[in-house]
């Protein structure tokens, strides 16, 4: 490939990544959407909250928030897993927020929102190190604790490796190899607003930086595997009957449609 072809090559990558991004987004949204639909449609025929459980819906919301934000059960169980998990997930959210800057044109939003996006940047930048630390901790546990090795399959390690690839390429790009942020944002905004004609113009193409290509490829892969993997824990936790049911079995009957059909229909 001669240097003169490089532009053509970036044209190719631009198209390739734009298309992959659409495909991955579709798979992610439809896949997770389908799973959520499936969880919603599947009845929980019996009251099975792990007690002591809240007596009201408001109480359940609090219980759920404590689980989702603070990983309360995990904290009771094992402080090491909790620590690494908190660091990893906390950093992940901050980093996700930081990435909003690639998807929002400041002209689309009112200023205070944009100001928040600006405000989060330095935090997001250093959160990447926290995320890597958390991931390495989780990986070390998985590798070195015998019980963890026993319950892990290849996909469990690979998931951590994939996230590490995302994190390492991101950090390298931020701090060492660099990329053209403005050009990348122009690319990303064109992708999400379907302005494909822009890709003819080099100012809207993927910047030709290998680290960026790696970073995005890994992210796209993550989006694709999400609905088919254990990453379903993110939506799944909200559907866990052990955690989301109100403890009111004596006060309220709780009969599933299939149970009514099977046992009670003739009587009604």
């Amino acid at each position, binding site marked *: 490939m001669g240097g003169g072809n490089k532009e053509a090559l970036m044209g190719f990558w631009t198209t390739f990544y734009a298309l992959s991004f659409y495909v991955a987004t579709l798979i992610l949204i439809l896949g997770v959407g389908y*799973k959520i639909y499936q*969880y919603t449609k*599947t*009845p*929980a*025929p*019996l*009251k*099975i909250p*792990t*007690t*002591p*459980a*809240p*007596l009201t819906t408001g109480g359940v919301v609090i219980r759920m928030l404590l*689980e989702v934000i603070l*990983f309360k*059960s*995990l904290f*009771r*169980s*094992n402080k090491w*897993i909790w620590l690494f*998990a908190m660091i990893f997930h906390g950093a992940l959210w901050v980093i996700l927020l930081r990435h909003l800057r690639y998807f929002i044109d400041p002209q689309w939003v009112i200023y205070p929102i944009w100001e928040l996006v600006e405000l989060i940047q330095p935090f997001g930048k250093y959160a990447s190190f926290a995320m890597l630390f958390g991931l390495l901790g989780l990986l070390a546990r*998985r590798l070195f*604790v*015998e*019980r*963890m090795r*026993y*319950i*892990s*399959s*290849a*996909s*469990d390690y*690979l998931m951590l490796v994939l996230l590490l690839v995302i994190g390492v390429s991101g950090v390298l790009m931020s701090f060492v190899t660099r990329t053209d942020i403005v050009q990348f944002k122009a690319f990303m905004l064109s992708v999400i607003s379907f302005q494909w004609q822009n890709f003819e113009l080099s100012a809207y193409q993927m910047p030709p930086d290998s680290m960026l290509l790696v970073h995005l490829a890994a992210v796209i892969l993550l989006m694709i*595997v999400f609905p*088919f*993997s*254990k990453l*379903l*824990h993110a939506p*799944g*936790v909200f*559907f*866990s*009957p*052990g*955690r989301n049911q109100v*403890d009111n*079995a*004596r006060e*309220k*009957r*709780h009969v599933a449609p*299939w*149970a009514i059909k*099977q*046992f009670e229909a003739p009587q009604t």
Partner: protein
Amino acid sequence: MAKAKFETPEFRPYPVIPVIKPGVMKDSRSFVSKPGMQESLGYPGELVDNWQEVAINKLGELLTKYRSLRVYLDTCVKCGSCTDKCHYFIGTNDPKNMPVGRQDLLRQVYRRYFTLAGKLFPKLVGAKDLTRDMLDDWYNYFHQCSQCRRCSVYCPYGIDTAEISMAAREILDAVGYGQKYCNEIIEKVYKIGNNLGLPGPAIRNTLEGLEEDIKDETGVDVRLPLDEEGAEVLFVPPSADFFVEPHVDGLIGYGKVFHQSGISWTMSSHASEAGNFGMFIGSYENMRRVSMRIREAALDLKVKRIVFGECGHAWRVAYAFLNTLAGPFDFLDKRYPIPQHICEFTYDLIQKGALKLDKSANDHRRVTYHDSCNVARATRMGHKPGGQFVIPREVIKACCNHFYDMPSDTIYDETYCCGGGGGLLTDELMEVRVKGALPRMEALKQVTDDHQVTHMATICAICKSQFTKVVPYYGFDMDQIISVHQLVGDAIVLNVNEV
């Protein structure tokens, strides 16, 4: 003490997480159910020829019926939080007794047949074919789970291995590979009316004998009524209370409480069993059928209230499922919880000052209390979350001067199962039962050393039977196990309320 073909685990000087020993409990196996029992529960008599197909179809059916199963099979991230929480893993070191290890037996098959990743890349995601070895692993290891829910407390998603075990057992039943112990008992309930197979006349005899005993001992006519139409309360004890020690002393205690309350009550020969093994085999249908007897008895005897005796999983089915399975109970008195636990009943009377209790009657006992797993983690008593921990303790403290709790990570919702719940209370499983009791025995040892505790009270028929059998392996005496209502019965001062 029975002759053991295995070694009783040593007390651990400090709590260490056991190293794993794959396969050590592989051959721990309860007897397979017989054709007749299978059929009377609505299952094929023996393993069907196309069991693989039937099993997969059954799993598919359950996935559409139980959200718990679907969500729990999908969401586990293999974080390892639950790995050291199961008493059977602590006692046996077999990694398939780690909650996630146990779940994975079913999850691997789920992934292979029901997920894209498992269909395309089975090796990568640890998906496995349903082979005969796998089916046997299901049978063996899902009958080494007492469905105690301890794992669900610590799982970040509340994944409850009990739900997985129930589903697996239902699949096993559906292919004709049920467990004898559970299915035989359910058959007895259908044919005779209770788990022990005591016919009505035998129960009547026993109760009359007990009434005489009480009369001899106290000089008071405490009645233990059976099948008395028009009583206010239908009382449903576990059938072990009719004659097994130490259960039966609990029954005498209930009788004295009812006697003092002045509330008319009756037991029923039709519903002479609180326990409901339909839950253990994960069968909604059988659980419902067993539950319906209680509704029928309540209607027949025209009672206004239902009260349950001391039985752990029975209280779970009663508290959490009865209304759903056999309700609505419009014909009962809505001012009282439907159903009510005997501890709630007694506690209310104590609160109202309606019982005169002489604590010194229990002064020769230094008591601790074992929270039964299903009561602790699947039910409630009273009107506040956690009442299931407070109320029995308050009842005990009202009757005893010396009460001491075991270490805090072994009580309340962190309680350890006795080791014999969930359909494991059978002799073939003695090894897993003894080993599974280890954490509870360690906790008991601790209060024995620290506070010279002499008795462990509990409110579950299975706990009582299991403990009396296994405590000798750990150097305790079977007489140290006691019913909460025996403490009540011994402390109660009879007749003060009578005019």
